[in-house]
């Protein structure tokens, strides 16, 4: 369960305070699948960053599985992330000096599980359609391919919570759907709590819940079509996989 209480973020910009996020109250149940939508600059990435503990809020607090993120040290947050959180960035963020496979393995290296997990990492790459590209460096991959490596990396440590910032933003519709299906499948099979930012309204509509941000405020919070079990991202959505 993720809980945001009175969450706010203010940047100093040119000497003036710029309130990017204001008084956000949100609760994400374990195993839920939520989409965050909103115009560019509305604070979506900022919100995700705060929820994942990648940045410190200016106001309010974040509770992850009943632990107060805002009270933790940077190292405690890092350890928490290593064990529980996956993150897919809008701009991929792969380590340029590592191959695709090595990138996927990093979270496992950090927790000392890499040796056993090399095969599953390879399988993950296969699943995102990059079988045979393990040895390539990010510079040798296309934007969409990099995005998929980032996805595989997010899956690698089987996180309980996964944040995805526009995971399909760089992909063609077809591939985008494939990626969305993977996310959904993970949510369904492993009970991963999924919070996803997207500009793709069609995609957002398939989530259980759609949260709309505008000017740093939550302006709408409604159920998506995913909530009635009628359909998932890939139209095969069902309730039995949820815990």
């Amino acid at each position, binding site marked *: 369960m993720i809980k945001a209480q009175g969450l706010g973020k203010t940047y100093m910009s040119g000497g003036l305070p710029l309130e990017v996020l204001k008084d956000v109250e949100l609760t994400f149940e374990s195993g839920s699948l939520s989409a965050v939508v909103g115009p560019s600059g509305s604070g979506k990435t900022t919100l995700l*960053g705060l929820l*994942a*503990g*990648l*940045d*410190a809020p200016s106001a309010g607090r974040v509770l992850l599985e009943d632990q107060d993120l805002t009270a933790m040290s*940077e*190292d405690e947050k*890092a*350890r*928490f*992330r*290593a*064990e529980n*959180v996956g*993150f897919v*960035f809008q*701009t991929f*963020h792969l*380590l*340029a*000096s*590592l191959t695709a496979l090595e990138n996927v393995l*990093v*979270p496992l*290296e*950090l*927790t*000392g599980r*890499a*040796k056993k997990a090399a095969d599953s990492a390879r399988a993950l790459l296969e699943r995102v359609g990059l079988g045979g590209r393990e040895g390539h*460096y*990010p*510079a*040798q991959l296309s934007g969409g391919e990099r995005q998929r490596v980032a996805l595989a*990396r997010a899956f690698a*440590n089987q996180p309980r919570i996964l944040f995805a910032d526009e995971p399909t933003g760089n992909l063609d519709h077809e591939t985008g759907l494939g990626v969305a299906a993977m996310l959904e499948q993970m949510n369904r099979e492993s009970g991963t709590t999924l919070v996803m930012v997207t500009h793709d309204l069609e995609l957002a509509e398939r989530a259980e819940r759609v949260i709309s941000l505008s000017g740093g405020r939550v302006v709408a919070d409604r159920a998506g079509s995913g909530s009635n079990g009628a359909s998932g991202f890939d139209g095969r959505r069902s309730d039995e996989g949820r815990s």
Partner: protein
Amino acid sequence: MTSDSRSRGSRRGRRFALLLAKREVKGAARRVGVYMLSTAVGVAAIVSIQSVRDDVSRAITDGVRETTGYDARVTLRGDAADRMTPVLDSLRTAGARVAAVEVAGFGGMARGKTGGTPRIAMTNRFSPGYPFFGNVQTDPPGLWTGEIQPGEAFVDRPLMAQLGIAPGDTIMLGAEEYQVVAGVSRIPGGVAVLSMLMPNVYTRLDETAPADGAPAARSRAPEYRIAFSDPAEAPRFKEAYQEEEVRITVTEEVIAEVQPVVENLGELLAMVGLVALLLGGIGVASSVHLYVKEKRRSIAVLRCLGSGQWTAFWAYMVQALALGAGGAVVGIALGFGVQTLLGAALEGWLPVDISPRPSGRAMMAGAGMGIWVAAAFAAFPLLQVRGVSALEALRRDSGVKSSRAKGDVWAWVIRLLAGLSIPAVWLVAAPVWQVGALFGGVLLGTLGALSLSGWAVTALARRLTPRKGWFALRQGLSNLFRPGNQTLSVTITMGAGAFVLGLVVTMEAGVKRVFELGGGADLADVLVANLEPGQLDSIKALFPDNTERDIAFVQLGSVGARVAEVGGRPAEELAADSGAGVTEEAVLRTYRISMNDDRPPGVAIVDGAWWESGDSPAPSVEPVRPDGPDEAIELDEASESDEPPADIVTIMSLDATIAGELGAEVGDTIIWRARERRIVAEVVSLQEIEDPPGEIGGIGNLAAGSGAVAGNFRPAPGLAELGGGEESALIDIPDYETSMIVQRQIASVFPNVIIIDFSWAMDLFRRGMAAARAAVTFLAAFTALVGAIVLVATLAGSRRAREAEAALLRTLGAAKGQVAAVLVTEFAALGTLAAAAGLALSAVAAGPLLAFGALRFDDPEWGTLAVVWAALTGLSVLVGMTGNREVLRKPPLPFLRRG
């Protein structure tokens, strides 16, 4: 497009370039700082070294004036006095101070009134006001009033000790009596090494004396010493009046003689300053290179938006020049700061006062160098800007090859100019172009070798990085060979820094070794000469408790002899009938005569000629049979009969002063008695001892030679054996007071022994070496600073990339310690390997380079180099960690957004 619209377009382009330059500088404050610092520190090195050199050379010029006590010295011969008197008078009217000085070479014997043994002394007679510069230190202190009163004398302390007299006592110089005012422990004029070595007595020169003809008894005409109101007049004066019979020495020549080591060291320092600047240049180039790499994308976007190939180039060139100028200003200020500090540090060490003064020359050099470094070293990486393709906006690291830029001719012109300017400036700025070329060559070789090392390190890391094991170790090591690694650039810059540092450290050790050689037991404080067999053991026995006192033996190639006949007149007859300059004392004294085939340095022939090596030593008179059997004759072992041993026949060069005192001339034959043998020697030349060359290392020889009171024999059969029995010893005595006691004791027990005190010369020498060491130590510190800044510049270039990586690892859940371990591994490995490469190269290059500095070089200083190595590794880690400390502390998202 019409030519008009084209020119309008290019004008707009230029304006845009300026605008862009301004904005870019604003946006990259930190990088601007590093860039400017690279230039500034290089410039500061040049400025401070140049300024300190100026300060030191000025201090030496001023100091030598104070050490010699005059600006010019005039020695007159023949009837030159008549010609020069009006000249000297006109100098006096023009404001110069002129003093007459008479130094009565080796002729004088001094003794206490109450009796005791006479000792050789040099009598110095000054007219009032001399010495013009510097202080006379007396004991008791403060008794020198600038003018010696008639009938009074000042006496060197060693001589007082040897004679056993005290202030207030009477000293006898020949037949004249003087009252001793005080002992002298230091007096200007000591630059003439010989006068430092001989014991001196100082009395007043009565200038009215020449009128009554009394000084005819002295063979030497007085010398004149001049102090000009502007010391620069001295060389001009010499230029105008130097001739056959007028010998003029100016202090500047003394400097040239005294300071060869300082000169060499100065050149070496200047070269290292240049190297520091070059390092700064590498810092500039590497920071520009990385900057361009980072900016490629924005440049590509600009290209997409339609800016020309040269627009971006000029935009960044303008930045580089402006920053270079800024760096030069900062560097000049910094340089003068260092100069002041260094001046203060050297103050107590140099025998002369250093007053730091801003040097215009140094300032100009600094400004020029700063802008040049900024432009020339930025040009190469900036030319890449032109090749940035618009495609790169679409795909970072796309692998798209830079497009062939239009107007490549100009690019090559720029490359050529920038490339050629480096060796050109290098050679022009080097104090001596050959030294510059040598250094340049060595440096070029070093850079090449470092590139190779960088490549080797990459290959080695690839091979040796373990596949399994600790993640941080693997990740850190593999960063050395992975795409976009900084191994080559860091190996070159840090290796170059390590190279120079290693060189300076070795240099410092070299200076230290010279210093130890001079200040240690090798060079003594006191020389005792003219020892007869067995006397040395007796002297040792005088100081039974001092087993540590080091007594070294020096065999002198000289003969101790008395005069038997001059020009056919027996000595007794001569002594009885003194007059016309001949003195009884001179005739009856024992002389030392050295044996030389070649004319020793410092010996000037004033009449006749030195013998050629092939000349036969045939005498012009028949050998004279020995005196009657009443002479004590010791039988030559080789001789089979009872006949006295045969005469030794040779030719000689006689000291001019002594020739006067003996009434001898060129062509006369003098018969000497040396032990039981007679030496029949024709005088073929008269000589004078010039102030010997200032090379202090030669003091030992000089001192030995100073026993050659009467001149030189040409070596002849049987002559060498005569000298064999006599010995000299050098005694190292820890302090001045002990030295006085030792000298006095030796003098009282062994009246025949000549005692020469070096302590002042040694003191001067030690202090000079200390100053040299201070300068080199300072340089080592400075080079370390430049190296550190260049390293910072290089590593800072990759900061963004490291930061993004560290932030990402943090995002993925890496603990602080893990990220830190990755960084430490990478920077430690990089630092260690680069430093090792640089230091190893410095050990190889040190020998030939130090030889130019006239420094001793035996072995690389492995111990110190190891310390430097460790320090550089530590520095690398420190810089790497400092650059990335924020990302370890702060939330990662802001760092990720930056990338």
